[in-house]
């Protein structure tokens, strides 16, 4: 590019401003489409935003590191947002504390199912070892899953992508799947989506009810712990 626009591009492409704005704008567009579609979970805002941003990065010839310099401010908020889950959890504490046993049982069963089924299917279908190891922690929130993948010989950045796809799949399909199973208990529904699809699933649960959201949030936190313990152990025994 030449002329004044070329100069402006050179300036913008070296500051975090452009891709921070781009990330928010793409997500906002995703949310707008979601609302326009009557809040249909199939129009998943994260999926829309990722597709838009990938196309824009490819067309403009921007590499991921440059993009991430701007987007890191959004990424950083994952930490404080995890802490903030304590607020709905406290608000729903009376209800949550009555379900300690169901939560413990569902956590162990769900966490094992998530790891073993993902790894098993990938091995049967001939995925490479790196991909299999990157898949193992896919149901856990991004920064924690990346840490687990690194320990067991997966690729952290691939894990991040698989984690987000898992979240998108959960957010899109949990409602029809749980309806199909005939489950009406919002505590169970929220907990299940939190175990299977972490923060993106939790965001979806909050759209349905605060009770489901609170259970999804606690499931997301608990499964981060459970998977961090289970995956390295399984790899040690079967790896």
């Amino acid at each position: 590019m030449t002329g004044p626009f070329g100069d402006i591009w050179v300036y913008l492409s070296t500051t975090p401003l452009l891709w921070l704005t781009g990330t928010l704008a793409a997500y906002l567009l995703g949310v707008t489409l979601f609302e326009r579609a009557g809040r249909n979970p199939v129009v998943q805002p994260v999926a829309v935003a990722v597709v838009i941003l990938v196309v824009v990065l490819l067309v403009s010839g921007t590499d991921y590191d440059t993009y991430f310099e701007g987007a890191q401010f959004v990424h950083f908020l994952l930490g404080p947002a995890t802490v903030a889950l304590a607020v709905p959890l406290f608000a729903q504490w009376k209800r949550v504390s009555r379900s300690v046993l169901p939560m413990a049982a569902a956590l162990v069963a769900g966490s094992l199912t998530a790891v073993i089924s993902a790894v098993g299917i990938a091995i049967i279908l001939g995925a490479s070892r790196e991909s299999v190891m990157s898949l193992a922690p896919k149901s856990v929130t991004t920064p924690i899953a990346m840490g687990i993948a690194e320990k067991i010989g997966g690729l952290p950045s691939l894990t991040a992508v698989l984690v987000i796809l898992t979240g998108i799949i959960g957010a899109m399909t949990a409602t029809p799947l749980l309806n199909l199973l005939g489950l009406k208990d919002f505590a169970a529904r929220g907990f299940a989506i939190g175990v299977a699809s972490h923060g993106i699933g939790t965001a979806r649960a909050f759209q349905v009810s605060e009770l489901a959201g609170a259970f999804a949030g606690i499931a997301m936190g608990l499964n981060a712990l459970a998977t961090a313990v289970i995956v390295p152990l399984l790899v040690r025994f079967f790896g």
Partner: protein
Amino acid sequence: MIAALTILLACQLAGEVFVRLTGLPVPGPVMGLVFLLIGMAVRGAIPQDLRETANGLLSHLSLLFVPAGVGVILHFERIGSEWLALLAALLLSTWATIAVSALVFVGVSKLVGDPDGEPPAGDGAE
């Protein structure tokens, strides 16, 4: 809002320090969540400011996953050659996990007689 953000960040910081000092296999932010929970339990209430800021952050929780998701751009080649195995593993495993977790939750609720769970079949005693 600033006070609430400071509380959230301070809890996360305390969580990260605690995890590193003790060597626990717990993620720092999750430990921070526990600290904030204890703080609210001691106080006995959620400060209004904290409630608003937390709800603001959580209402757009999924936005925070967008930057990592765009990282798909780094893995087109691998995804292109292994897409069937990856897609099948993600879809089937996510569905199995949701179904197993929800069914076990409901089953154990019935077993221990949780009054808020789904009522046991054929038992109108509540």
